[in-house]
């Protein structure tokens, strides 16, 4: 029996500190066998959640990175034309023998037609991520990353897969999932995702974490960092997030910064240290200036 607390502990063992909303979402997704659609600003750990889940639940991770123009040939399955051709070439003599028995052309065609399905079998089917995760013997975790980058058509394609966990191949029929994978879709919200897709998913919005959780995240990743410094840097970044920056520093920047500070062996945050490392947290020139101004107010 999986419980929410159990999931929190699981994720913690995978190095991911979850709040109760995330744990509830994962819990429901596992019990209801529904995909989770995660939205939120970049770098708050959407993909990280999927990775942590796959390692702590021991589900093999199948990742599908979306981009503009992705289609079923890249996401579901594809026929391996080259291999089919190669086989026909190699089997030519075999085929000759096989067909030479037949009396006339008509019979030969019939004989060949009877064997047609051989060339449209699983042998020649290239499994792309979605089909691969459906056919995996072990329950897998299918991560459909940055779905907002793909087009409408691709979203429509996903509808069948996500609601019924099956893939229709015209030549073979419907292939149902052996084990229903845990599906996680992530989106940065650059494009509105259709309601049809939203309806099939649980919706989880991950925003910036609160102070305690963010400190816990830093300390889980960098245990050598002292509590005081972690508190100090996290509260500084939280103030920076309110500055209306072009690219506000997110959790991934916090972790980068923590990493830099450990390498520099800093024990507390000073303006000198910030001036030297400001490039880690601010990624635009205008932002650099804003962070430095904030540092003048906040730090000594």
């Amino acid at each position, binding site marked *: 029996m999986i419980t929410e607390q159990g999931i929190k502990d699981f994720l913690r063992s995978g190095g991911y500190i979850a709040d109760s*909303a995330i744990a*509830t979402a994962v819990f*429901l997704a596992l019990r*209801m066998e529904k995909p989770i659609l995660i939205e939120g600003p970049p770098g708050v750990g959407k993909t990280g959640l999927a990775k942590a889940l796959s390692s702590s639940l021991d589900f093999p991770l199948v990742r599908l990175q979306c981009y503009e123009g992705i289609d079923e040939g890249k996401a579901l399955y594809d026929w391996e*034309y080259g291999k089919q*051709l190669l086989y026909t070439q190699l089997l030519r003599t075999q085929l000759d023998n096989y067909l030479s028995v037949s009396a006339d052309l008509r019979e030969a065609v019939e004989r060949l037609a009877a064997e047609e399905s051989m060339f449209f079998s699983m042998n020649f089917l290239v499994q792309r991520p979605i089909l691969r995760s459906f056919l995996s013997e072990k329950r897998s975790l299918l991560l459909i990353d940055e779905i907002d980058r793909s087009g409408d058509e691709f979203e429509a394609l996903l509808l069948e897969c996500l609601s019924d966990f099956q893939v229709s191949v015209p030549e073979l029929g419907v292939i149902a999932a052996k084990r229903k994978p845990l599906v996680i879709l992530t989106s940065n*919200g650059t494009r509105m995702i259709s*309601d049809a897709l939203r309806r099939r998913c*649980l919706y989880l919005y991950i925003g910036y974490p609160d102070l305690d959780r963010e400190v816990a995240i830093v300390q889980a990743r960098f245990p050598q960092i002292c509590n005081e410094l972690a508190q100090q840097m996290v509260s500084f970044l939280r103030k920076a997030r309110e500055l209306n920056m*072009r690219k506000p520093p997110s959790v991934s920047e916090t972790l980068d910064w923590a990493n830099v500070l450990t390498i520099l062996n800093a024990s507390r945050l000073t303006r000198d240290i910030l001036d030297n490392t400001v490039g880690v947290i601010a990624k635009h020139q205008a932002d650099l200036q804003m962070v430095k101004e904030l540092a003048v107010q906040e730090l000594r």
Partner: protein
Amino acid sequence: METVVTRFVHALREEGIRVSPGECLDAVNALVLGGIEGREGVRALLQLTLVKNANDIPGFNDTFDSFFCRQQENPFFINPEELMGAFFHIVEGEEFTDEMLEKRQEDRTSMLSGAQNLTAEDLQNLEWLRDMEEDSDGPEIQVRMKGHRGKNKAPKPSEFNLLNLPSAAFSKSWGTESNPAFTPEEIADMHEVVSRMLIRIRKDVRRMKEEQNRGKLHVIKTLQKNYRNGMVPFLVSLRRKKKVRPRLVVLCDVSFSVSYASRFMLLLLHTLHNRLMDVRSFIFNQELAEITDLLTNMPVNCLLEIIDSGVIVDMDENSDYGKVLVNFKKRHLESMRGNPTVIILGDARNNYNEANDWVMDEIREKAGYLLWLTPEDRETWKRGDCLIEQYGAYCDKVEYVKSVDELSVILEDLFRSIYTDHAPRKRRDRFDKDNEENTVDYKDYYNQAKAAESHNYWMQLNPSSSAWRERFGISYRKKR
């Protein structure tokens, strides 16, 4: 429990959050699976299953708080059997198909066991809920249908979407408030308007792209593509027809008299930029300046501040359309390629300067389509220094826009026509032909001139009509 969830879903719908029956079922399932443990737990479960849009989360929280706030002295016991009795009325107004019923039957046992775990805390609202009138909050959709039954036809899908605009701020006319910066809500709403618009246009865009691909076989590319298949052409590559790259050139008056409209235009441009087509945007007052780069590289509020500070164009001057047009011709007209659609936003109040309307003719030559948008009411066009009638005679269309909704509708139509056939010019010629045929019928010049004197006659015509052109002595050479 189902009743509570259903009521809650209705409350959400009244709040404007779209919840489908399927999601309602999910919520019930989730509550059974997750158990009802404390207020926050239930809130999390309901939010995960019912809310599918980050913008709706605050609304959900408000509704949740107000819905589950009523405290009662005696938490009463709920009989699970009784709950099951109401089971098939989970969603009012929804008819269950057989499949769903079967599925429900299967779930019934598990639901029963789940229902016994209910704590009264979140269900104590049942009693006062029952007291509520049955019909008070039917599904939103029914309410809507009622509204449109009868004489009023249901709105077209596109109009319908516009009726659902996310915020009331935009359904109003242009606000004339003095503060120039956009609130985050305005920006978010504009993104919403644009993304809805894009969704509606996207189908046409795709059709255009497909049509572009329809052409003769591109032999070399096909061979290259099928090299690994031993030159057997599994993948066919077709020669593209003439490449169509829709372009838009926008001239936007930012002088004080139209600033309230132009700031929305700028915001719309900002959101549209690079999402749909190449846009070159200019602002002018007495001087003309291109702001295409600024639009791409700068948050819109910064840009507005800069414009207001008068660094780009001097804001203290009065607008001078004639001078601007001449400057536009001198500096930019040469670099306009590919029959762009030209949109001019302004009130055409020239402050009694030289009109220089011959430039409009040259712009028209270069442009695929020339549209003039004015925020000023038709009634006032004849008053004072307004030159819209003169300029408008050169345009394909003069439109009066009084709100963002109208602006987005007009632009949407424009984009659609650009994308679908990319030949507004062709279409225009056809219209012209029709108009000409009409005018042949009216050879009674005397009466026509007399009618022209009356105000109403001209009010019926768009300044882009041929009668207007005649009035200003403008004649067009037919292109191609």
